[in-house]
């Protein structure tokens, strides 16, 4: 491939995003306002953080369907502790720990028995949601301390905290994926597990690691969710795993494993966020969002297919 094509390949979704932004700026006066842009960042932050973890999972050619339910479970755990008067640090920590434990369980079962993660995490999707409903007998919790809701309501130099937290997750994720031994092993384990094993990579441990990471991200995302809503309900996050997977795929991470980009995922999540926001600003019925996003996903997977054939 020529350098030009390679650059296009790298920046593809980014360019689409940019052009879409330009188009929207001409269509509606509200789009290109600082407030609207920071809204889009806030609205996509939860999806984005979970998508960072999902990028790792998909890069190893696995999938994690449980994160939407896990988001609710972590939210309820943190919410209960906050309501019981525990400190913010303990409540937040417990929520994130819950996510990590669920991730470890998923990874443990997948690796130990060599089962498809699709099925295992599908099971966890039900289990986590069930426990979330069970914890408070399905009642929502609300009225958290001011210091806690600042996690979502605060802002620094005009940037809302959730946006900053999501950006931090993306930067951290990309550095881990491309600059550390763990990241390179993730790519190796997904691209060619046999070769990876032969060259001394413990594929099992790596897979445990990515599921742990995915659970951790769900935990962090749950904190932002409940701080933003100033309440925790067990029905939150239903179906959100699909948004997250879509963001990762549109971003250019290969469903077949061995190729992942966290920055691409960022663009994927933003593309969906901008589409949603733009269509609302233009008073277009929400069903169109689905059709457009669906087309983008299919095109992204087709591209991935031909990219694999080329290399």
């Amino acid at each position: 491939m020529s350098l030009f094509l390679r650059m296009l390949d790298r920046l593809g979704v980014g360019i689409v995003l940019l052009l879409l932004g330009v188009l929207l700026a001409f269509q509606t006066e509200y789009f290109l306002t600082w407030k609207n842009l920071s809204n889009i960042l806030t609205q996509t932050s939860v999806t984005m953080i979970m998508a960072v973890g999902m990028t790792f999972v998909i890069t190893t050619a696995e999938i994690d369907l449980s994160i939407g339910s896990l988001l609710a479970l972590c939210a309820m755990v943190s919410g209960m502790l906050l309501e019981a008067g525990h400190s913010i640090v303990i409540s937040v920590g417990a929520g994130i720990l819950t996510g990590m434990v669920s991730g470890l369980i998923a990874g443990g079962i997948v690796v130990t028995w060599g089962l498809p993660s699709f099925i295992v995490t599908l099971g966890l999707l039900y289990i986590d949601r069930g426990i979330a409903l069970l914890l408070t007998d399905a009642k929502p919790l609300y009225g958290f301390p001011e210091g806690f809701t600042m996690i979502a309501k605060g802002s620094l130099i005009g940037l809302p905290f959730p946006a900053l937290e999501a950006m931090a997750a993306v930067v951290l994720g990309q550095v881990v994926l491309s600059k550390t031994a763990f990241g390179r092993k993730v790519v190796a384990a997904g691209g060619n597990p046999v070769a990876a094993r032969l060259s001394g990579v413990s594929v099992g441990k790596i897979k445990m690691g990515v599921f742990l990471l995915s659970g951790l991200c769900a935990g962090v995302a749950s904190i932002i969710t409940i701080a933003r809503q100033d309440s925790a309900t067990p029905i939150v996050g239903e179906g959100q795993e699909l948004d997250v997977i879509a963001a990762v795929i549109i971003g250019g991470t290969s469903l077949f494993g061995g190729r992942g980009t966290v920055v691409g995922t960022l663009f994927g999540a933003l593309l969906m966020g901008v589409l949603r926001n733009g269509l609302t600003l233009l008073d277009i019925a929400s069903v169109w969002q689905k059709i457009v996003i669906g087309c983008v996903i299919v095109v992204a997977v087709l591209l991935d297919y031909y990219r694999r054939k080329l290399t």
Partner: protein
Amino acid sequence: MEMCKPEIATSQTVADSGLLLAMTDRGLRFLSQVIGRAGFILGIILFCGIVLCGFSNEADAKSYRIALVMKAVTNPFFHAMEQGAKTEAEKLGVTLLPASVERETDIDKQIGLVEDFIVKQVDAIVIAPASSQGLVPVLKLAQSEGIYVVNIDNPLDKDATKQQGFACPFVGSDNQLGSSIATYALVARMGAVGEIAMLEGIPGVTNAELRKAGFLSVIEHVPGIKLVASQTANWETEQAFNVTSNILTAHPNLRGLFCANDNMALGAIAALEAAGKTGEVAVTAYDNLEAAQQAILQGKMFATIEQHPELMGAYGVRIAKDHLDSKPVEDYTRTPLDLIDYQYLVKVMGITGKP
């Protein structure tokens, strides 16, 4: 040896098609190399452009812009609400901007809708909140930006609003009263004796909890009535079918069933039919959907509650307009409740059903 001949014959065709395949493949590779990404980008932009240009409509700059935020596109209840609001908006000469999330559980997306309307600087937001607690912070934000907020249908949680220091007028029916009326009619129909069950809405949602409370408040005063099961079917027809089937298996002597909405009642009726118990178990529900009316006319269902969603939408818009015109408004507007049974349908509404 015998099998060789046909194989030779086909191998030539295979070679041909192989060549063809290889050519197609090379062509596709070439295509994807040259116009792969560029084509992708152009395609998306073109598509979005068509969609956006085709649908964008400039609002009348002079009239008030009032957003109507609803919570489930598939529920006829919200169609009626939107229709009522639209008619009223036309009458008052304001621009209505309706928007809805897909499912009642899309809390985060509904918050996003409100944020988008804040950016659009609408004059008022009329909202049926997906969560009685979760929407409070963003609505407070909207109010602080000078947007007038009217809460319709599902009331915001009193404690949550008090904690946040938020207040706005409410338009809706008294859900607890409505379900008490429905339950009272059901109990009367049962002759005040026998086993009764309830299908609940999504647990924790205010409307669902109020309807459950209304149901319980009636049956606890009737000694002859025995509550044998109360389970959620999450407002959904299909889940209601399964839950009802299970309840019937466990309690074959069931005589009455109260469903917290008509969607669930439709599933329950189907389950009764499958069990051959149509007419043996009296069913009452909530919402007065057309399908429920048909079921009542066919004798499969006893009664339902009409809570006039079209009036919720219309009153919501009117209150917003009144406030924007600096007229005083009521804090709490109750929409009327009607018990719809066979007599009501035939005599009052003049509906006789499909032949």
